[in-house]
């Protein structure tokens, strides 16, 4: 035994308690986990929203954009037209308002266009994939395939790429330079787009072009019609055509008074377009109530602001020249509209039908194995493959919700599966983590921060021009908005666990490396888990 240099027992050497391993007291141990943020879980394009917000929070927009681009090739488009289901499930909604994910996404997308940020592709694989349709789904598939090193050639029947993003969504919601910018970037990656090239013989084209696989995403373009007894009816148009007409040649002539029949987003787009084209009156006639309208509420709101009129619970019974007979409806117990026998009339010059679109997949009928639903929609498995091996499909033409984002998500999923298919394997998505519920968070720690509001164009210009209605966030606001993210379920290195442990049993590993528990000393009090703002620590019982 060495000679102690201090007076016995009364005087002790500092830090000597490290010999006392208090970890043995523990009955539960804290464990760091990564959980699935609800926004990520809800994003149809499978974006790692929280992941890119993390970088945006630091003001590193390029890094943020790169993370975003792993899943979605068109953030500037999505930041404008995506219906952002992420925000509906954002946990911050239960605190104040959801993070304006789309606004930050748009900001990043715009930054990328402004600064000409580029995407890196993997080395050439030598494989070639045919993509039919340059809508969002086809573009996304081609983009992801290119990133993975495969050659992608898109054939599109139309004169310009973009599908419904161009021929459906009006430019006041999606300026064409933005759309063009993002499509151009895809092309610059080496994706070849052959326009005015309607595919009739898919199998032939594949053989001719030496393609190893194909992805079809031809959308839904056949306007649905309805029979209305009409005598000397004025103009009856369909919405898709009107909107398409806006992009090709001279704008359609609609007259002073326009009635739009339908209740979807298309109806609103076309009504708002009519207003901008000079119609005195754009009146939407819809069978059901506002609450039941498939159109998104914010779009209804914007349309009403711009002077679009809506007649709820009404059907058009008869048209006699410019006189429309409209029957009032009532909702039955199940919420279905039932005729009341009460009629009214109204005057209009043009009727635009906005009753939805069907798919035109006739050109695929001959391909062996492909299975169709009765409305022409093509069946795919969970890997987006049709019944024909090597032939994949997605977007509006397969059974699913019809949105740009879903289409882009299909494109991504298809690309990953095509890649696996080309390598003779199957793609297995990694298992999903548990989704973070609001109750798992300790929201005390987040600052009170109201959502940033995007600027809106002034009303006169909204009613008369096709300028973009909703403005983007500036840098400060975008940064602020990004920082509203709660980082649900994933450690964002707030140091709370490191700070609140009464036993110093949390080891800080330095920026980006998170933390580690020192189980030698952790007594298992659970303070770290309770005080973790984002629910990234769970307590698990110790087994003896």
């Amino acid at each position: 035994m060495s000679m102690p240099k201090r007076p016995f027992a009364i005087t002790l050497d500092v830090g000597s308690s490290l010999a006392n391993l208090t970890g043995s007291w523990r009955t539960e141990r804290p464990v760091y986990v990564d959980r699935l943020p609800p926004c990520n879980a809800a994003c149809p394009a499978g974006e790692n929203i929280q992941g890119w917000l993390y970088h945006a929070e630091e003001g590193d927009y390029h890094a943020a954009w790169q993370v975003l681009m792993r899943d979605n090739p068109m953030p500037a488009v999505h930041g404008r037209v995506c219906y952002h289901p992420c925000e509906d499930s954002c946990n911050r909604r239960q605190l104040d308002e959801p993070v304006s994910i789309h606004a930050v996404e748009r900001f990043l997308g715009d930054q990328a266009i402004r600064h000409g940020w580029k995407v890196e592709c993997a080395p050439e694989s030598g494989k070639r994939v045919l993509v039919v349709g340059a809508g969002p789904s086809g573009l996304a598939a081609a983009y992801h395939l290119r990133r993975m090193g495969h050659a992608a050639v898109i054939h599109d029947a139309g004169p310009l790429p973009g599908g419904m993003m161009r021929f459906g969504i009006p430019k006041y919601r999606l300026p064409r330079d933005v759309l063009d910018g993002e499509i151009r970037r895809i092309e610059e990656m080496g994706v070849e787009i052959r326009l005015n090239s309607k595919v009739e013989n898919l199998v032939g084209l594949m053989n001719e072009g030496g393609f190893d696989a194909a992805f079809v995403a031809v959308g839904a373009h056949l306007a649905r019609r309805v029979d209305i007894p009409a005598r000397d009816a004025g103009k009856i148009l369909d919405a898709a055509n009107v909107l398409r007409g806006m992009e090709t040649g001279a704008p359609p002539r609609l007259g002073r008074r326009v009635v739009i029949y339908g209740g979807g987003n298309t109806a609103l787009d076309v009504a708002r377009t009519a207003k901008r084209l000079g119609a005195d009156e754009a009146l939407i006639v819809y069978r059901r109530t506002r609450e039941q309208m498939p159109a998104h509420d914010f779009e209804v709101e914007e349309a009403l602001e711009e002077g679009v009129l809506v007649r709820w619970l009404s059907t058009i019974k008869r048209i006699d020249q410019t006189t429309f007979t409209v029957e009032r409806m009532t909702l039955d117990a199940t919420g279905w509209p039932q005729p009341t026998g009460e009629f009214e009339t109204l005057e209009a010059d043009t009727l635009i039908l906005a009753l939805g679109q069907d798919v035109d997949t006739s050109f695929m009928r001959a391909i062996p194995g492909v299975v169709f639903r009765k409305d022409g929609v093509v069946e795919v498995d969970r890997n987006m493959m049709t019944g024909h091996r090597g032939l994949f499909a997605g977007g509006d033409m397969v059974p699913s919700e019809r949105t740009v984002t879903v289409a882009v998500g299909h494109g991504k999923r298809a690309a990953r599966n095509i890649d696996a298919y080309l390598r003779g394997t199957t793609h297995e998505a990694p298992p999903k983590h548990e989704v973070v519920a609001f109750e798992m968070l300790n929201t005390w720690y987040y600052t009170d921060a109201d959502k940033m509001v995007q600027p809106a164009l002034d009303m006169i210009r909204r009613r008369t021009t096709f300028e973009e209605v909703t403005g983007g966030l500036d840098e400060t606001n975008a940064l602020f908005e990004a920082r509203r993210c709660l980082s649900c379920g994933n450690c964002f290195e707030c140091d709370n666990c490191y700070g609140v442990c009464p036993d110093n049993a949390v080891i800080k590993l330095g920026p980006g490396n998170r933390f580690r528990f020192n189980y030698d000393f952790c007594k298992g009090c659970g303070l770290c888990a309770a005080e973790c703002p984002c629910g990234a620590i769970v307590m698990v019982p110790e087994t003896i």
Partner: protein
Amino acid sequence: MLQQIEGSQAIAQAVALCRPEVICAYPITPQTHIVEGLSEIVREGRIGNCQFLNVESEFAALSVAIGASAAGARAYTATSSQGLLFMAEAVYNAAGLGLPIVMTIGNRAIGAPINIWNDHSDSMSMRDSGWVQLYAETNQEAADLHFQAFRLAEELSMPVMVCVDGFILTHAYEQVDVPSQAEVDAYLPPFEPVQVLDPADPVSIGAMVGPEAFFEVRYLAHHKQLQALEMIPRLAGAFARAFGRESGGLVVPYRTEGAKTVIVALGSVVGTIKDTIDEMRAEGTEIGAVKLATFRPFPLAELRAALIEAERVVVLEKALAAGLGGIAASNVRMALRGLSTPVYTVIAGLGGRVIPTTSLKRAFAEAHADRIDDPHFLDLDWKVIDKELARAKERRRSGPIAENILRGLGLVGQKLF
């Protein structure tokens, strides 16, 4: 330099010469003049950077000293009587922590009844606290003991009390040789603590110690006292060589050659005893005295050697262990264990009761003739006692409850003590 000064001032000057770094005090008669003197000296800047703290209690005074000492400063305080009891917890603590604090006790009785006059009840109550206790006979010794006290305290890392009889010494004007700073510096080296609070070498001092080590810690405190027993004569010797006069030590015999009766006492009363002895010697009585200059550690062997020739020993003490008798006497008996020498206890001077030579002479003579009662209460007014006991008896009877209890116990009419 010889000065005709008040004892307290001599002590203050001696303490100042020891270059204390922290002095703290709370006033209590008869200690006041010492700290008043020191506060003036400190204010005049005569002890360098020394800090003088006016604290709010004796408990705080000693606690401040404890903190200062643990931080490596030479720390000093002084108190008396109630003050010493008020700081009792800290008294034990300072000793337990081995902090070389020097504290002057201006010895005074403990109340109730409150009494400001001299006896040794106060310091005696702390005799087992682990402090060294040195008792001064004169003001010169009172001053000198402080130099030795600091050196002893710091060499052994233990606190030392210098006990000085209140008023009799503290307020008496006598000639005192106050040494020069150079002389004191040569005798008392700077304080080098064995354990110190220092951010450059952090330690934890004052740990909680359980049954597995507490006993050893206590033994070590005892052992330190035994070491002090060896060191005190050495320091006293060194002091005598350096200053040319005797002060302190363990036991100091006076005319014990051939003495059949030896008086043992502490403090200033030794002076009166010496006078009495001179008188009695002159009359042919074989009597001498031994001064107990150090009461803790108790110099068992030295005292036994000093008393071995005596036929009887009389311990005269200014404290009373109620229910027992003499405190010093019991200790002296321990020094003489195995011998048949009778040890008589004389309790004297409580609460400042004057101890006249005549009374001493009478008592010593009775002892010399082995006729003294033991313990003997010197000049106790038995008339007063008897009267009061009678009164108390009356009153106690009159209380029906007490009476009934006593009757029930069959104790009525018996003397209760």
